[in-house]
């Protein structure tokens, strides 16, 4: 045990002596949570649109003003003909165009109906759908106002309540997601590189001829990173609560404990990567190139897992971040206790044990 602590201390010095690395390690989660927490949102706001309004009458102007005043749209251009439309879309200047007919006002007052055309740039289909929806509902609201003095019979009113996040802040979704990405990738990357680096520099052999067991050496290399992650977890949580106004509805100890469990899972993955590679370059390419996009896209925080084709849904189960993302949302935002997330926690735990067993086996094979 004493030897072990000596080793941990040695690793600790390695990390502390490299202030640049340390600075990035601690600075990264803070900068990223701040930027992403404030900047990222799935909502579509301030979309630039163009209007073609040949009638320019009272009705069309009031409707356009209402569209422009909403937080979703920003009228960027007024077109004179549909000819320019193509050009504006191709230059990427607008996301949507709304086309009014000739004599808009006249047609509403006389025939009680008028045609409005919405053209969306569906090269981004998500934005296109959302914008078309927003525009339609603004137009419909305006139409309802026209009919205000007429009460419709047999009406079903729907009252909508937004649970957990009534202001629809992007941070509620992105903080748990970014948290899982940063913890995962930093832990995996750092451990895999730290161990492979020793191999590359020939230090591993020196360590392995010492009376310590390989597992002790490897654990000693990972413990400092576990402590670093703990600092990161705490700084992320502090930022989330005090800067981003996120609640911590559930038990903070449960949240930290499970975050540490997730860190250990990632560290184990790093150890596994280090056991199958011999160069830092390969280790880091696997840890970053190999894990970045799959973690981002399959953990469920960017894209709903139930929309994916079945094989991908199955693959997503192998992504530790998926389970952690669920846990963070449940404990932090929904305020649930261990009884609701014991299953996910067990999955993370078994992943960790599984990864460690394989890496220890791999190391034994190599050394004997």
């Amino acid at each position, binding site marked *: 045990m004493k030897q072990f602590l000596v080793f941990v201390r040695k690793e600790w010095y390695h990390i502390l002596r490299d202030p640049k690395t340390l600075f*990035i390690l601690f600075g990264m989660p803070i900068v990223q949570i701040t930027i992403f927490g404030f900047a990222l*949102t799935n909502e579509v706001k301030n979309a630039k649109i163009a209007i073609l309004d040949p009638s320019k009458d009272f009705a069309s102007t009031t409707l356009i003003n209402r569209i422009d005043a909403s937080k979703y749209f920003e009228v960027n251009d007024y077109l004179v003909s549909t000819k320019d439309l193509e050009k504006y879309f191709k230059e990427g200047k607008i996301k949507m165009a709304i086309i009014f007919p000739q004599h808009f006002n006249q047609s*509403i007052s006389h025939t009680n109906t008028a045609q409005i055309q919405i053209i969306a740039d569906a090269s981004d289909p998500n934005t296109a759908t959302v914008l078309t929806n927003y525009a*339609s509902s603004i137009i419909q609201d305006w139409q309802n106002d026209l009919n205000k003095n007429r009460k419709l019979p047999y009406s*079903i009113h729907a009252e909508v309540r*937004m649970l957990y996040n009534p202001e629809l802040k992007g941070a509620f979704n992105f903080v748990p997601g970014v948290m899982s990405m940063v913890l995962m990738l930093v832990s995996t*990357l750092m451990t895999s590189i730290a161990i492979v*680096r020793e191999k590359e520099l020939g230090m591993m052999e020196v360590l392995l001829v010492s009376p310590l067991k390989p597992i002790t050496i490897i654990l000693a290399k990972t413990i400092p990173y576990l402590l670093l992650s703990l600092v990161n977890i705490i700084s992320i949580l502090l930022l989330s609560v005090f800067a981003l106004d996120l609640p911590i509805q559930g038990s903070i100890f449960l949240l930290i404990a499970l975050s540490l469990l997730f860190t250990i899972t990632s560290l184990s993955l790093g150890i596994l990567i280090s056991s199958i590679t011999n160069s830092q370059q390969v280790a880091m390419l696997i840890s970053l190139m190999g894990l970045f996009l799959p973690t981002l896209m399959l953990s469920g925080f960017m894209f709903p897992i139930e929309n994916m084709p079945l094989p991908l849904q199955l693959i997503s189960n192998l992504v530790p971040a998926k389970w952690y993302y669920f846990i963070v949302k449940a404990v932090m935002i929904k305020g649930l206790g261990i009884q609701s997330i014991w299953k996910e926690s067990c999955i993370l735990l078994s992943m960790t044990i599984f990864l460690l067993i394989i890496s220890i086996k791999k190391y034994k094979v190599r050394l004997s």
Partner: protein
Amino acid sequence: MNILRYLLEKEFRQIFRDPSILRMIFIMPIIQLIILPQAANYEVKNVKIAIVDHDHSTYSTSMIYKITASGYFILTGINDSHLDAMELVERDHADIILEIPAHFEKDLVKESETEVLMSVNAINGMRANLGASYLSVILRDYNQDVRLKWVQLPRFDEVKRLNITSTNWYNPHMNYKLFMVPGILVILLTMVGAFLAALNIVKEKEIGTIEQINVTPIKKYHFILGKLIPFWMMGMFVLSLGLLVARVFYGIVPLGNIGLLYLFSGCYLIAVLGLGLLISTISQTQQQAMLLAFFLMMIFIMMSGLYTSIDSMPYWAQVVTWFNPVSYFIEVVRMIVLKGSTFRDIQFNLGIILIFAIVLNSWAVFSYKKRN
């Protein structure tokens, strides 16, 4: 010029000598490009809905039928109490709870007015909004059906009604893959370029070979060019492979000029490699270089406009994206591939990327010190 030739020869030899890295550079991006776009589907088609029906009437039942038949919703539970339904939401088994009060039918028929309650899981705001608006549309339709049944509408409707028609240009079938594949290709290309370049010079520092180079009369820009060119060629190869995958697996053929796409990509790669080389020259160890590259990459990718719209960001964050080369490329790749934009349409972005390329590479040459 001759010296450059020997530098290039050496770099290529080293690259091809390490098959494990080569494999990773070519195979990993391609596999990801084949698999990951399938995951990227925002389409709100499968909203999971739990219904708490306190009424159990003909009307409530027919309304529930209308919702499930719409194709947008998956009914994951019909519960007796709000609490049971909440449990489904907590376990992420339901996104929306629709609660039908006990006097739903009675109120509708007798009072001519009734109410339902929608509770939406709003952790993901966009999904919540869309789900709620879909459900509202269906309810409105159902409401219309009810009215038609009870009221004989006059032939000439006095209600003013606007007809909204919507058209989706460039992607009429709303195929998400058309949108994600080029974007993911850009991200993969950026990662390959930036990570490889970031690791390269610092590796020579770590193993000491850079000493021997520094004591030769080699020019600094020769050395940087010697690193830049091989990676550039590999990047262009990855791009070509990626476009091939896009065509074979997703049937995506760029609408615009492919030469234009290559022109832009070529300039873009120079910028990204310059960034990588810059990181490499200012780092002491590969670990440092990697962390720094990862830190920047993560910001670049998340703020690129691929996953979330840049227009929706607060102004200061939009300013941050001006310094993000990835965002310019994401925009251009979409313009060329999906909209068939021409040189005139992308010249602004091209200009910016050229400035990035010049600044980053000059900076890399400048910060590479042959003596300290």
